């Protein structure tokens, strides 16, 4: 790579003045590939101050997939291009000076896709005079562009870079302010679009499957045509797809919601742009009731729905489409003609909020046009009660694992803080538990048992801090490692399809280790551990035979319970039944009556569900089925726990669902480690709230009966029965045979009316 700091006049950018031309630098190793439109800038360039201690790293540009040894499936590499394949970075500060004509500039900096250590948290802050821009992100794949204003004086433009851990830069663009919009549109935005999906040569082999909406284009009013947009409101359970028109009935529809005390409730509305707009700002005025009392200042959280490319299935490649996927914290937006912008407000009421009608206004400024969207919230005079016999939990990839591997304090603290934020988020959304694991093995040479309780202790401490200390923890075990020890390094294969029966000593050892874990768990006062030796065993004979023996080995320890992720309704698993205490399966595969009878007949037996059809593992948009599963569906299932896989899964870049062998999904993470929810997460939360409405009314009916208000109790019971009768009972609630979006609210309101009636009667 040749050293250069000359002005670059780029044909692709059109004719520009030689006095102030865009400078586009591709940072990295001398001799490495350089991106079209960019010029190389290496570590020896004069732009760096002499004090700066820099490092440089190069990653190979590979397009061929490898094969995942365990699954046999193709596994794509982390895709780099000329811009991202190498970078310059440092653990300390750095100063850069560019020789440019005096004037105002925009500086664009590309940072990320470092490759390597997934536990590293990258942190960069760039200053130019008083202006600055910063970004923090984790792992090997994430990539961001940051932008800041800069002024060149005396022929120099200075940048200072600082970090709390390490920073890297892949590219820098220094663009005269007047040229910025054009360069961004022609060069920088296409670069970012490519980095957010797949390299063009890979993407061209994929087939785009646009969502087909059956909503016709409405007849726009003269006012809508004149202003260039329409405001519409759709029930939050129904997605607003990119390139989808609003229904005629949704345009101008009131934005309203009702809520109990201490509940969080979504209120959404959307802007359908008939043309492009550069800048949309939002301000939500305080919610004020008839008496002038206002909801707390922090009652409203504003977000917008981010569209993302996804595949139709978690591990499918070759097909992709665009969906509304993540609820991003609100920030100033631009609008593209024909692509709706959905604004998603979460309104949190406190338990002591005065009931009544609260009104507010969302003020939109769309390129100078002011729009008022009226918002009405009815706060009901009661608190909800949760059924203590059902539990909501999550499979969880604990950030503490990465914290333990992190090489610097900032990274470690970031992962630890992230775990705190996520626990708080789960708790605030009605979740009471997560999965855990105790890994163990024996040293190949000495046979010494290697086992660590302290990592689990730390996780349990955090669970307790956030009120999850009573949840029986499905606890993964080091089964495959111990198997390899006794079977000369053999692998069990995906879903233990290759497992062979190990010697008796293996099972004896397994019992002894389980006893050891159980003793320690009791000594430390941990919640109950549910011993979870294998995830999703196959139904092959060899798998089932192995499962029977390993479950027997665990059950030899007095008082412990086992946890198995398999369908109890499948006949192939019948031999395991006597040894399984907790069946966890995806569908509600056991009918309610049978589930309840089985659990009554055998104390300790429980049916749990991990409804991955609702978690976003495949379809990222099934909010309505998710709400059904978590509320009315669970109510009529007989299952005790919902524990989907998984709270959050990031393969490569969390903002790119196409770039790895399997898709990202679930909650995402902001630069400060705080969770960014999805509509599906909100559907969990709202479904849980539906369940609370049901349980609150059931409890009041029981109390009314006890106190002799038989007639009133019977009337409320009739309404409950009416709802029960009108549920399409299904094993998996997705998007078929479900109530309409507004029907959920009608049923919830029926419950609320009855709750208020009985509350008035009883209290």
């Amino acid at each position, binding site marked *: 790579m040749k050293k250069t700091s000359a002005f670059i006049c780029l044909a692709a950018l059109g004719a520009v003045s030689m006095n102030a031309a865009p400078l586009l630098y591709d940072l990295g190793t001398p001799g490495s590939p350089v991106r079209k439109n960019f010029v190389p800038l290496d570590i020896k360039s004069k732009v760096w101050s002499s004090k700066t201690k820099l490092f440089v790293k190069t990653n190979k540009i590979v397009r061929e997939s490898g094969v995942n040894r365990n*699954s046999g499936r*193709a596994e794509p590499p982390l895709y780099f291009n000329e811009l991202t394949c190498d970078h310059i970075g440092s653990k300390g500060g750095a100063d850069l000076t560019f020789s440019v004509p005096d004037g105002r500039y925009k500086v664009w900096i590309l940072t990320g896709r470092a490759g390597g250590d997934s536990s590293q948290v990258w942190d960069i802050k760039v200053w130019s005079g008083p202006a600055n821009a910063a970004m923090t992100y984790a792992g090997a794949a994430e990539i961001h562009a940051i932008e800041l204003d800069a002024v060149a004086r005396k022929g120099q433009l200075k940048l200072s870079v600082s970090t709390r851990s390490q920073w890297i830069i892949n590219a820098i663009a220094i663009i005269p302010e007047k040229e910025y919009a054009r360069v961004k549109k022609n060069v920088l935005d296409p670069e970012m679009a490519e980095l957010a999906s797949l390299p063009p040569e890979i993407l061209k082999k994929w087939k785009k499957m646009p969502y087909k909406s059956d909503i016709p284009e409405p007849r726009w009013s003269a006012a809508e045509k004149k202003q260039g947009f329409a405001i519409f409101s759709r029930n939050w359970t129904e997605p607003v797809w990119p390139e989808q028109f609003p229904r005629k009935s949704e345009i101008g529809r009131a934005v309203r919601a009702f809520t109990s005390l201490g509940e969080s409730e979504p209120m959404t509305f959307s802007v359908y742009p008939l043309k492009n707009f550069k800048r949309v700002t939002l301000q939500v005025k305080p919610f004020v009731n008839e008496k002038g009392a206002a909801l707390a200042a922090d009652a409203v959280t504003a977000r917008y729905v981010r569209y993302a490319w996804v595949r139709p299935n978690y591990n499918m490649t070759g097909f992709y489409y665009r969906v509304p996927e993540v609820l991003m914290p609100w920030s100033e937006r631009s609008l593209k003609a024909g692509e709706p912008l959905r604004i998603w407000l979460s309104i949190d009421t406190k338990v002591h909020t005065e009931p009544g009608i609260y009104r507010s206004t969302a003020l939109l400024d769309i390129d100078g046009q002011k729009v008022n969207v009226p918002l009405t919230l009815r706060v009901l005079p009661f608190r909800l009660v949760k059924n203590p016999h059902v539990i909501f939990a999550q499979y969880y990839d604990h950030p503490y694992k990465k914290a333990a591997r992190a090489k610097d304090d900032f990274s470690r603290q970031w992962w630890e803080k992230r775990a705190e934020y996520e626990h708080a988020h789960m708790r605030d959304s009605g979740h009471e538990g997560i999965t855990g694991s105790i890994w163990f093995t024996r040293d190949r040479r000495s046979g010494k048992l290697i086992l660590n309780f302290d990592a689990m202790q730390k996780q349990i401490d955090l669970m307790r801090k956030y009120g999850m200390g009573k949840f029986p923890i499905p606890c993964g075990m080091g089964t495959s490692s111990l198997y390899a020890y006794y079977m000369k390094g053999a692998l069990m294969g995906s*879903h233990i399809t290759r497992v062979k029966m190990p010697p008796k000593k293996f099972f004896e050892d397994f019992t002894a280790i389980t006893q050891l874990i159980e003793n320690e768990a009791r000594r430390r006062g941990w919640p109950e551990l549910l011993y979870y030796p294998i995830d999703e065993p196959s139904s092959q004979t060899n798998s089932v035979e192995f499962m029977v023996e390993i479950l027997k080995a665990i059950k030899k320890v007095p008082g412990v319970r086992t946890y198995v*992720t398999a369908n109890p309704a499948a006949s192939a698993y019948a031999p395991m039944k006597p040894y399984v205490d907790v069946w966890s399966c995806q569908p509600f595969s056991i009918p309610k009556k049978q589930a309840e009878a089985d659990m009554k007949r055998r104390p300790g037996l429980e049916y749990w569900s991990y409804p991955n059809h609702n978690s976003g593992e495949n379809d990222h948009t099934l909010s309505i089925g998710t709400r059904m599963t978590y509320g009315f569906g669970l109510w009529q299932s007989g299952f005790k726990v919902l524990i989907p896989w998984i709270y959050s899964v990031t393969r490569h870049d969390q903002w790119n669902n196409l770039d790895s062998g399997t898709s990202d999904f679930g909650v995402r993470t902001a630069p400060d480690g705080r969770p960014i929810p999805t509509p599906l997460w909100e559907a969990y939360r709202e479904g849980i709230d539906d369940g609370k409405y049901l349980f609150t009314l059931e409890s009041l009916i029981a109390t009314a009966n006890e106190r002799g208000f038989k007639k009133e109790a019977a009337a409320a019971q009739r309404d409950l029965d009416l709802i029960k009768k*009108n549920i399409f009972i299904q094993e998996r609630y997705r998007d078929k045979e479900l109530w309409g979006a507004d029907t959920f609210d009608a049923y919830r309101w029926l419950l609320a009316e009855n709750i208020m009636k009985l509350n008035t009667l009883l209290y």
Partner: protein
Amino acid sequence: MRLLTLFILLSPAFFLSNAAAENIRIKPLDGKVVIDGKLSEKVWQRKADIEKFYLYGSKPENFKPVQTSVYLAFDNKFIYFGVYCQEPFMKKLSLSGKKNDDPVWKDDGIELFLYPSLRKSSYVQIVFNADGVIFDQLQRESGTDGHDLSWNSGAVCKTFKGKDFWSLEAAVPLENLPLDAPEGDWKFHIARNRAWKNEQYSFVKGIDSFHNATLFFTLSGIRFPSLKLTVLDYDPGECRYGKNRARIVLKNWSEKSVTATISSIGVKSDTPIAPGTKVLHIDWEQPFDAAECNQKFVISEGKRILRQLTLKKKLQDLVGDEKNAVHFIESNQPVTLRIPVNMSDFSAAESQVRWRLRDLQGNVMVSGMTQVKKQSVLLRIFWSFMAPGNYKLELELFCQGEKVAGVSRDLRFVNSPFQGIYDL
């Protein structure tokens, strides 16, 4: 934890544009083949057309690959397959299938996927176990939905078992395959099941499902000059109550008129098809009193069956239930209900729903007659002094003036949480 179900959305355009697949050119038969399982004929005494097979799924410990060689040929009537399967453990062969259409894909054997119909995603799967037992089916669309087990390839297969190998010879009649044209490229896939060892092999590296037609190879060079009539498209219709209409697109490749015979619900009709493409519409009735649709369609030319399709499915209730029993009542606004009606569009145009809303004392609050449209009837219920409470909605469905169904639904009307509240 991963969802193991893989569903594949396939479209014809994708198959045709999939440039990644490799090409295999089939040769015309040189000499004759006696289908006896022994690869002794001259046609098999050459380099095999396919010799490289890849293990499907994860590699087991102590993995030792075995040889599989495939030979291909065709003549005016058949496509021939000769397959050599090395097997050092012949005594361990797992063979449970005894008669045709037994699930022999679980056995040691060979699976063929022939995709000669590229306009529609219609391909055939033919499985031979090492005893020569055949399973065959027509796959329409993707995955396991749309498979037609009633389809028969008419294939003949024999196998031969040696000391450390077994071999197979099969002849698949061209006339039974879902061909679109007398010549043109096909897609195909061939796989080997080594069931006793729980190993599967495919000649397509990294294929994620044997049915993933996007990764099938191209088979070129095959010709069937005697083919006159082909089915380019067929759609049996809505398969709902009432009058349904099937649509069949035929192409006559010859220069003379050909007679197509269409058999639908036991009624045969002959239609002359002039050279070129012709679209036929066949009307058929689904009786209102049947709980399931069970119809068979056969399209043939002389003795040759071009397509046969059995439609068998449980029908939804004629008058469905939207399960929305609770409705808000708001000032001067009707309560709107969309009741599903599982009736064909043809019959819906001649059908109405008579409805009555009664209170719990049996008083009729309001009634009406509404036309059925597009599988549903839209009711707008409104009367003066609408009040919250429990009601019963009675529905009677009439088709051509005759009552064909009657149901009732419990409804609950509640005041809206925003009754009387106006937005700013």
